[in-house]
């Protein structure tokens, strides 16, 4: 049974916080419209961390931005708690969404206002939506979150350039979490950071998720990072979801060749293995219009030609039987 049909039939599922249906996004270049994402279907469950993995240019960030209403869609619908949030929506809903869906950006050095101190940066959203009764409460909120994020209250009066990359990213996280959002779109929050700091930021995000029961769309290109943090992983290739599965199962049973290629690209900290391994480069040979996303097993989707479905299905069933028996 295809995912599309399922989604269409049981549309406002309670456990799905975000539903993308036949979403089509493109950019105008001159008179031509360049379609980046075509007919994309994806569900994000409440309270989960969904890792969105793909190479640069595949459209990961575009999806994230479309959910955050930064980029308009051409067609299709994005549902938030069963309410359409793309296209023309009432002003009140727009304002509500702005508090409920927050973003963490990739480059901590470029995404912070260099002229504003940390206090202003963190409390800008609070000011915009009057989310505090008085000045005292605002300061309390801001200092609480800044301490929670691992900085000290005296840092509030400093400016972004006085912080290191990891600390800047903490500020970026603080300013999105202070709004108490339901969902966070983390757009490659760790790719510009050192390895040792990466671990800190990842821990921070997973802690917050647990604490506030937030939903996180974690966009990254590195599968190793995503594997650690996310519950489910969606692999995207050239604007199309290629494979969706829970993170454990995806790593153990990568069905789509592109997923397999991505897995080989992860550097393994073992010189013997790393030097002998062969990196696969996936090149799409099939016509993308002919392929469809099939549910091969429960919660495991693979995009393939209808003829190939049975191969994947048999593989998956074999694997899951083994897994259950273990």
């Amino acid at each position, binding site marked *: 049974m295809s995912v599309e049909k399922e989604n269409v039939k049981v549309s406002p599922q309670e456990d799905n916080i975000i539903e993308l249906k036949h979403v089509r996004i493109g950019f105008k270049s001159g008179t031509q419209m360049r379609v980046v994402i075509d007919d994309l279907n994806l569900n994000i469950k409440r309270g989960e961390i969904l890792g969105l993995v793909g190479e*640069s240019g595949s459209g990961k960030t575009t999806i994230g931005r479309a959910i955050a209403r930064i980029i308009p869609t051409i067609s299709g619908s994005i549902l938030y708690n069963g309410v359409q949030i793309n296209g023309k929506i009432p002003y009140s809903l727009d304002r509500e969404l702005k508090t409920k869906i927050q973003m963490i950006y990739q480059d901590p050095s470029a995404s912070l206002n260099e002229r504003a101190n940390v206090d202003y940066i963190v409390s800008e959203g609070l000011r915009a939506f009057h989310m505090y009764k008085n000045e005292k409460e605002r300061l309390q909120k801001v200092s609480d979150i800044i301490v929670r994020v691992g900085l000290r209250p005296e840092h509030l009066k400093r400016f972004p350039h006085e912080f290191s990359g990891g600390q800047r990213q903490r500020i970026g996280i603080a300013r999105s979490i202070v709004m108490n959002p339901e969902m966070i779109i983390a757009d490659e929050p760790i790719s510009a950071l050192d390895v040792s*700091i990466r671990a800190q930021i*990842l*821990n921070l995000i997973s802690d917050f998720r647990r604490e506030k029961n937030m939903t996180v769309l974690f966009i990254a290109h590195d599968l190793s990072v995503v594997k650690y943090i996310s519950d489910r992983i969606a692999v995207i290739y050239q604007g199309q979801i290629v494979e969706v599965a829970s993170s454990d199962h995806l790593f153990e049973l990568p069905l789509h060749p592109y997923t397999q290629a991505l897995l080989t*690209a992860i550097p*393994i*900290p073992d*010189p013997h293995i790393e030097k002998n391994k062969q990196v696969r480069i996936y090149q799409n040979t099939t016509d993308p219009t002919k392929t469809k996303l099939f549910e091969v097993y429960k919660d495991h989707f693979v995009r393939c030609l209808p003829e190939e479905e049975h191969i994947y299905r048999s593989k998956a069933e074999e694997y899951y039987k083994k897994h259950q028996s273990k």
Partner: protein
Amino acid sequence: MKKYNITLEKINQVVENTDKSILDNINIDLDIDKSLKPKKQQEHKSDTVLSIKNLHVYFKTHGHDNHVIRGISLDIKRGETFAIVGESGSGKSVFTKCLNGMNDSNSKIKQGHIYLNGVSIHDPKVTKRLFKKEDTRKNILTLFKSRSTEQVNEKTIAEKKKQDSKIINKLIKEKNKVDFDKLVLDKQTALQKTCDEKKLFYDLYYTDMINRSLNRKSKSSLKKQKLVSKYSHKVDKLMRSHELYFGSDELKAIITENLDSFKHGKLYTTLENNIEEISAFIRNLKTNPEQVEKTLQNDFKLYLTNVQTKVSNYNQSLCNTPEESNALLSDIFKAVNESGEQFISEDVVKVLLNCLLTTVKTLQKHYKVMENNIYTKVVEFVTKRPIEVERTLQTHAKALNNYMLLVNIYTEYLDIYYNVLNKIEDYLIRRSSNLQKYFMSKADKDKQENLNLYKEFLNSNKEVNSKRYKEIQSSIESLTKTLDKQSETISEELNKMLTERCLQNKPYLDTKLFNAEERKFMSSFTNDDLMYILQAKLKLIELYTLRKKYLSNTEQYKSELLNSFQAHDIERFKKYAKVINPSLLRYVQDINKAQQNVLKVNKDIDARIKMLDQKLPTYETRLELLETERTSKVSYLNQQIEMSTEKIIHEIETSDISNANVIINLDKFIFDVKNLCNVDVKIEESKLVNNPHSDDLVESLKRRGVINGDTVDLAKFKTNKEWSMIRGSRIATIFQDPMTSLNPLISIGEQISEVLRIHHNLSKVEAKKEALSLLTKVKIPEPEKRYKEYPFQYSGGMRQRVVIAIALACRPDILICDEPTTALDVTVQSQILDLIKELQKDYHFTIVFITHDLGVVAGVADRIGVMYGGQIVEYGTDEDIFYRPLHPYTWALLSSLPQLAVPDEPLTYIKGNPPSFNKEIQGDSFAPRSNYAMKIDFIMEPEMFKVSETHFAKTWLLDKRAPKVKKPLIIRNLESRMQETAKEFLATQKEEN
């Protein structure tokens, strides 16, 4: 099939023949394995490319020195990949920027050395210049080109291919085997031709290279001779100048030489003016009487007439009242006194004397009148009163007195005259002193000249002076004569007068007309008269004495003048001596210096000769290099040919005749071989063809001790010019951000070919060809189309590929990769890493790889150095670091990798921040963040402990006294974790395998 075999045999024969001929010429064994596939491990042991010794780098910020690199010692071997791993802020980038001289201006290498081994460096600009001069080489190349270009031209090739394919298709259709065989034969003869051409080219090229190096040798010897001759000439010149200065005759010659220039100088004109002034003065003195007569006669006449009228008035007034006449006389004297300063000459005196004479005459007349008056008065007195007579006589006496006064005044005039003379003398003296100053201030040569001139001047002065003395003497003599005459005449006249009067009075006295009293009075009167005359006589005597005095004075003055002149001369000469002596000393010193210089120059020449001698072996080595290169090239060619021939055989054997690709492949292969050799030779050649002899920069660096044989100390490089010899051509760098390291305004192709054109002097067409081949080498699809595009049209990975292509354009010895993949995707990252590895196999460069991700390192590095706080904390082979890490920092780095993370457990991370370099770090720099820090870690810096031949770590945990520590969980189960991760990520691959 037989036919093919025959042709192939022929090809093989040709190839073998070329081999043998080349081998015979070179006498070096061909070893394809060694030349083309150098075994890494053999080279590892053999040499180190970079050896860094105790490097300390400081950054100056806000007047404070930050000790950023704190003593790094490393050896990086040729052909290996050395990875430096550490957090941001640990100083990895600073360290690597020291290697290519790209550190910020506020940084300074305070201590330590960076030795770059096995490199002969040169100024790239010099090669460019040399290239233009080299005509013979070009001729050869053009000779070769003219043949090859026909086929090199790609369009023609494409056309040919088409034609060939058409023909082949036709043949296949017709199944005309014979024609097909012919075609194949043609193609293979073409291949043979190319092989011949190659051989010819190599022969020509290498013989030319050898010839040129021999030429250079001869040129250098010529240069040597030239140098020697040049310096000897210099020395001769110096010596000659030295002789010139001290030889009297030559000195004169110099003076005469310089006289013309001197004449035009200011000094000469002023001197001339002075001399003219003096001479004019002298001339005035000579012509003074005439000029004065002329100029002053009118005034004087007026004055005289005035005086005369006054005298006449006086005479008249004498008649009237003697007191008035007295007043008049005094007036006249006053006038004379006042005008005395103006009119000082003999004539004035003469006139005055005349005037006096006239007055005397008038006095005489008056006297007569007086006598008459007296007579009448006497008669009257006789008749009336004798007292009145007495009064008249008294007035007479007064008049005489006044006359004496006049004489006095005359003498005063003489005094004034002498004063004037004195003034003239003073003036002369002043002039001379001025002249002296002039002489003092002038240069020594001028001084000599001045001295002569001055002597002449003095001589002329002496003459003038003597003339003047004579004049003065004559004037004085004439004056004395006139005085004598006048005094005589006056005395005679007075005597006469008196005698006459006496005689005249006698009758009166004798007459008995007077009574006794009257007689008495009369006698007394005569007595008084006589007394008066006596007084006058006395006065005259005084006059004589005065004259005598003057004479003596003049003599005295004369002697004094002479003495003074002599004294002046002596003083002046003394002064000159004072001035000249130091200058002489200076000259002597100069000469000494010159001699020392000569010695130095001699030493220099010796050193240069030595250098030249030393360079001769480098020529030989270069020749050897050329030869080895040639052999490798030839062997490569042969290998290619063999391979291709095998392929062809294989294809022909396996496939039908209908396989048209065989022939096309053959064509392509011929083209490829030509292309490959063309550019490769050129690039290698541009590295070899440089001439170190004309390279001043390298010379100076050698003198400074920066270059020592084959090793270069990069730590002592200072200017960009010096770095430009290393950067790019020897050490190339790939930076983290490919966008910022490419120029957004210039197309990609231009940016690559620019490097080739500057560094290797390739023409635009050649550079483009090479750039395209580089683009294909870094696996950029459709290089022809991509060549013209701009950086913004490239994706991140592509940009990084372009940057790599640019870095490889100069075939560097060392490639520094400064976090080349941090801005890239995982997939692209793995591709780029693979590409770098692949290129390393082709180009045999050494890689210094910098990253913060230990995962990336595992696949790339042969050896790994972990860097923290400006120090290498642990280093060893990849196995050492990954399987047996020893430093707590390495543990922390490894355990923070998400790949190794234990599921459902928080990721371990390193607490705190890397140390700031503001304060001097005490003890182990990692101690504050380490979970395993001991007390000693905060006090003393640990030494580098040697664990094995390859493995070193800098931690106190390795000390014998240190307690045994429980390593973190991930490190303890490191190998099992690694295998698990490998299983996780590579499950599918293993399945397939």
